[in-house]
């Protein structure tokens, strides 16, 4: 098997568990979007054009609340600001790819595909850029198509899911399960603790700006803890 094929398969296998998670998540979005008055094409259009669960949930919630259009757009983009950080983190690995390829990678850059790619590039730094791109597209397959299809399924199901199933909680459990294995150093743990503390403390700030400040503070905490620990080792 060619190295690219091996990398694509490895990417597919790494993100395959996400398919099982995306299914209830997408169904939930389809249900909530149609319940708040969107049509079937609008609901599917949301998932195909935006491809970002948390922002989609936030936007649909605010559309149902009749929030001003500009506030809805700003909030959804604020929730997605982390994508720029992912984009920056992938640039050393994929930045030399042709423009059309980078644009395609950008379209399918999600929490899930970023998480598995970052881990793989970390573990196998000797890969060629082509293998890294192949890994990335392999990891997209269990995520994005499942997201589109499950959204459509949820839009059809509508209100048939009983609230007693607490399907809403699939979202936070997924995020926790993504982050937990990353808590591998004191710096990572410190960053996560600061992120939680600041996000809760600043939750009252309007338009998700609290989360953005929390993320910035947490990134600085991680980097400073790392520098501080390195100095401690040297001294």
């Amino acid at each position, binding site marked *: 098997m060619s190295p690219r094929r091996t990398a694509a398969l490895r990417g597919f296998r790494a993100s395959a568990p996400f398919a099982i998670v995306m299914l209830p998540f997408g169904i939930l979005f389809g249900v909530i979007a149609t319940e708040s008055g969107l049509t079937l094409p*609008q609901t599917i259009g949301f998932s195909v054009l935006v491809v970002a669960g948390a922002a989609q949930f936030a936007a649909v919630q605010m559309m149902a609340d009749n929030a001003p259009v500009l506030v809805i757009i700003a909030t959804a983009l604020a929730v997605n600001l982390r*994508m720029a950080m992912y984009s920056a983190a992938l640039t050393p690995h994929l930045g030399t790819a042709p423009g059309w390829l980078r644009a395609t990678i950008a379209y399918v850059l999600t929490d899930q595909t970023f998480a598995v790619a970052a881990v793989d590039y970390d573990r196998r730094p000797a890969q060629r850029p082509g293998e890294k791109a192949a890994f990335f597209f392999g990891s997209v397959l269990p995520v994005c198509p499942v997201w589109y299809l499950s959204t459509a399924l949820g839009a059809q199901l509508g209100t048939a899911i009983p609230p007693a199933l607490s399907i809403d909680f699939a979202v936070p459990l997924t995020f926790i399960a993504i982050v*937990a294995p990353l808590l591998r150093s004191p710096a990572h743990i410190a960053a996560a603790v600061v992120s939680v503390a600041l996000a809760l403390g600043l939750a009252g700030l309007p338009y998700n700006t609290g989360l953005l400040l929390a993320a910035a503070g947490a990134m600085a905490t991680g980097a400073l803890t790392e520098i501080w620990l390195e100095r401690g080792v040297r001294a």
Partner: protein
Amino acid sequence: MTDPLMIWATIAAIGLGTFLLRFSFLGLIGGRALPPWALRLLRYTSVAVMPGLVAPLVLWPAATGGTTDPARMAAALATLLIGVTTRNMLGAIFGGAVVLYAVQFALG
């Protein structure tokens, strides 16, 4: 919001803006290397954003009208513990779901 044109315009604007955020560094900076301090900061992107995104959802879930729910708290803790100890993502989610339903059942 009920005007179909307005709904589509909102969806398209969020889609385009999100794409530009994703394309930003990949598209503009290209093959140039980022400075070491930037790479150091970016190592913490995931652990900086996701815990903050999740914490309010766990403490103040919309499904309960923002009231703290012991079943959801227990489920989140179980997922965190299983995730940290086993590094098995699906096992952590499954364990959390079991705890969620068990506590909900126990508390009636």
